[in-house]
């Protein structure tokens, strides 16, 4: 990187907030080191940094807590890491409006703590809440088990401020919970992985904290019976806030069923309820009644500390993971997909763990690299088979984590079909010189 550019960056954000050389080690992704990491403290400084990067034609990777830094392909060419940790203030919280405006670099945990002190919460529970930032969670569309009832960022984000590739500060949406003025820009930036602009502020809808919340688990000897129980639950009067289906390996990864499951082909259903006491009690009893006929047994409550272990359960099953894939399928296909996928890997001598937000059809699978590390090609072959399997049912698959050697053999993102061309046109309109996370996202964007 030219010294002149570094000087300008130091002028823009202060010398202490521009890291270079050895200080960049936390920002190395897939063995690739950025040219510098820059930490602006205001929206204006973010705009200045992006303006400088644009002028110099340097790629910009926005960075919150770094919890999803390795998702997608690494940037095609080295550039700047734009860290948002100094934009971490809660700007507005009006409990009577059930809305809050927050800077992108605030961690989810800090944000939730501030909201909780006034009886409210953002109904989004991504993993790694202590490190993940609000901006990062939006940019990667992260969520956790409670999405079953409360949806994802697209159901909660009502306004967004972004700095676009030309350094302009742009707002979309607003601060009110219902708003159809103009295009829905918040939707555009959710899950766009920093390829269209850098999210700097967000306004979100909140919910009152529930009176009570309870998590229970039910064991099944066969995974497909658990799948049938899920269908019965969603067709019932119950209003669970989470329905998680874990196979035996993931259940041990999440430490929800102790070692009791062993290596059986069974699974564990973990169901969450919230509301007033009598609602939670009634639903627990009803769950027992509903799951019994499908072979559900040993219903017991889990500690609240189990919640954050659920979504990462598949990867937690193995000391070393060879690859992790996420699938979106129809909810009715979840158990079958898990069983078939596990069978495909087993046929190639590989162990797997599977965990699903079963009510909404999102599944995560991890491939173990033990006992003996495999060739990347063998790993990629299973992943390709899995992708083929879910595409056959109208779903799609994202390679959430794998070493670069595997990613170079199988695309990280699924093929969006004809819609990919529209995505390319949007990217070309918003980032014509291709400096925002180039090459990281879907369709080579």
């Amino acid at each position, binding site marked *: 990187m030219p010294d002149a550019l570094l000087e300008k960056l130091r002028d823009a954000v202060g010398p202490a907030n521009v890291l270079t050389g050895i200080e960049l080690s936390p920002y190395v992704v897939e063995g690739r080191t950025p040219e510098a990491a820059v930490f602006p403290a205001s929206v204006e400084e973010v705009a200045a940094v992006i303006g400088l990067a644009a002028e110099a034609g340097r790629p910009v990777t926005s960075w919150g807590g770094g919890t999803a830094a390795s998702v997608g392909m690494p940037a095609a060419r080295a550039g700047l890491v734009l860290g948002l940790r100094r934009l971490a203030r809660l700007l507005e919280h009006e409990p009577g409006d*059930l809305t809050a405006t927050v800077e992108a670099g605030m961690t989810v945990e800090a944000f939730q703590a501030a909201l909780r002190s006034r009886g409210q919460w953002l109904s989004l529970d991504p993993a790694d809440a202590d490190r993940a930032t609000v901006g990062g969670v939006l940019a990667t569309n992260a969520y956790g088990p409670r999405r079953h009832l409360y*949806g994802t960022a697209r159901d909660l984000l009502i306004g967004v401020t972004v700095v676009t590739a030309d350094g302009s500060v742009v707002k979309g949406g607003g601060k*009110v919970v219902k708003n*159809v003025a103009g295009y829905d820009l918040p939707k555009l930036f959710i*899950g766009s992985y920093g390829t269209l602009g850098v999210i700097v502020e967000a306004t979100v809808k909140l919910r009152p904290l529930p009176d009570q919340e309870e998590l229970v688990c039910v064991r099944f000897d066969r995974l497909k019976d658990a799948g049938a129980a899920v269908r019965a639950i969603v*067709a019932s009067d119950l209003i669970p806030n989470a329905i998680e289906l874990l196979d035996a390996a993931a259940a041990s990864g999440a430490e929800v069923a102790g070692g009791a499951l062993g290596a059986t082909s069974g699974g564990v259903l973990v169901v969450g309820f919230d509301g007033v006491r009598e609602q939670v009690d009634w639903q627990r009893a009803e769950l027992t009644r509903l799951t019994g006929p499908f072979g559900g047994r040993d219903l017991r409550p889990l500690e609240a500390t189990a919640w954050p272990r659920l979504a990462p359960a598949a990867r937690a099953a193995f000391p070393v993971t060879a690859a992790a894939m996420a699938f979106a*399928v129809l909810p009715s296909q979840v158990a079958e997909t898990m069983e078939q996928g596990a069978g495909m890997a087993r046929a190639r001598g590989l162990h797997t763990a599977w965990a699903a937000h079963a009510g909404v059809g999102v599944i995560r699978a991890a491939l173990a690299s033990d006992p003996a590390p495999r060739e990347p090609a063998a790993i990629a072959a299973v992943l390709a088979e899995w992708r083929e399997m879910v595409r056959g049912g109208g779903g799609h698959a994202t390679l959430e984590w794998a070493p670069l050697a595997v990613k170079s053999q199988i695309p990280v993102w699924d093929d*969006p079909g004809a819609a990919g061309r529209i995505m390319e046109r*949007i990217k070309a309109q918003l980032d014509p010189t291709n400096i925002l996370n180039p090459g990281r996202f879907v369709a080579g964007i």
Partner: protein
Amino acid sequence: MATLNDSRKRELRRELAAIVGPTAVLSDPDELMVYESDGLTLFRALADFVVFPTSAQHVSAIVKLANRENLPFVARGAGTGLSGGCLPAQGGIVISLMRMNRVLEVDYDNQIAVVEPGLVNLHLSWKVGPRGYYYAPDPSSQQACTIGGNIANNSGGPHTLKYGVTTNHVLGLEVVMPDGEIVWLGGKTREACGYDLAGVFVGSEGTFGIATRIVVRILKKPQAVKTVLAVFDAIDQASAAVSAIIARGLVPAAMEMIDRLTIQAVEDAFNCGYPRDADAALLIELDGLAVGMDVQAEHIVAACREAGAREVRTARTEAERQLLWKGRKSAFGAYGRVSPAYMVMDGVIPRTKLPYVLRRVNEIVAAAGLRVGNVFHAGDGNLHPNILYDPRKPGEETRVVAAGAEIMKVCAQVGGSISGEHGIGLEKADFMPFIFSAADLALMHRLKSAFNPTGLCNPGKIFPTKKSCVEVGPVAYRPHAIEEKGLAQRF
């Protein structure tokens, strides 16, 4: 605005008829007049053709023809929109989707339905109702408006307080793009691959293409419903009750406010049991599990009483509940009892600003020498001031429009929005700078260019415009051709 000469028009009519059949093309000015307005009759614009396709392939062929001829085109559903969004502002082709009105598939296991855009909103709930399901977004026009129109406007309704608006219920769409290509955005799964194009498409007011198939979520009907009417002697008390309910950590399914003028109009027309001397009433609905419902209802009643409600009553039977809702849902029609015309405004404010903004609305309208009735979604701060006027009195309509603009400015000043559910369309295009900067609008324009680079797909909407061929103003009575032929009579 007719943009074609007669011989070219005859030629194009033949081509359109070859695509959709001769009985599915209108080009006679008397027939076209039916399509010159939507629910906001203040604006009128005449198309060159109205066509009635029955498939995505038809729509695609029509759009390709329009592109070849450099002719604007716009999709139209039932025409119940309230911002002039489906008007052919620059002439060209109106593509009516009313013959594409089938429910193509219902998958109860996965709680989704695939429908065509011309399906009437309520008909979907009728279809899935016997199995215990419903389609949640419930605009007041749901007996007539179409799901495709709901997509264009991201329509809301009373129950969106708890269940969200249209966009929260759409998973995917088959779209005829502005160049005629047929593309799926999103699909049947809950997560799409890549950018959330379905999310961006919903609410784009027909400027990003034409949806020809729509995947929506259907919800299980709640086990129990409880409806409460709270009556207040001062509208400020009703506003305070809204905040008090939210402060208690309750999120009702719906929380609607009805003011004195509206109560009186409704009672004159339908006798729904609202007290005529009240200053305001709140209609509050809870739904969900039967167990625990009474506890929550007690909280609602207590919050209303603390805010000063003089009476709080709960509907004891389904018939009583329906009657209360009838009062709310037919309020717009009831204004006909008290005024020859009215203009529906649509703005959103932070809930905590309700008392201030309602006072300002009354002041603005009074200063214009007019009357206003308020019936609106108080729970999510979505106001609908309805300004009553007489179009035959010279100058009144101009004063209505000016007062409406003032009200929108107040909404913007308190941090709100100029539309909660009716859209920008033609009506509010020039108000966009109240809430968006030039940079905000420039980004939206670039997004539009990615979908609709030629601008032929529904031109003249959303963005502040320089020129338009739309007629604005009161309609002088013109006898329709069928009246002149003695086939119909005006009452």
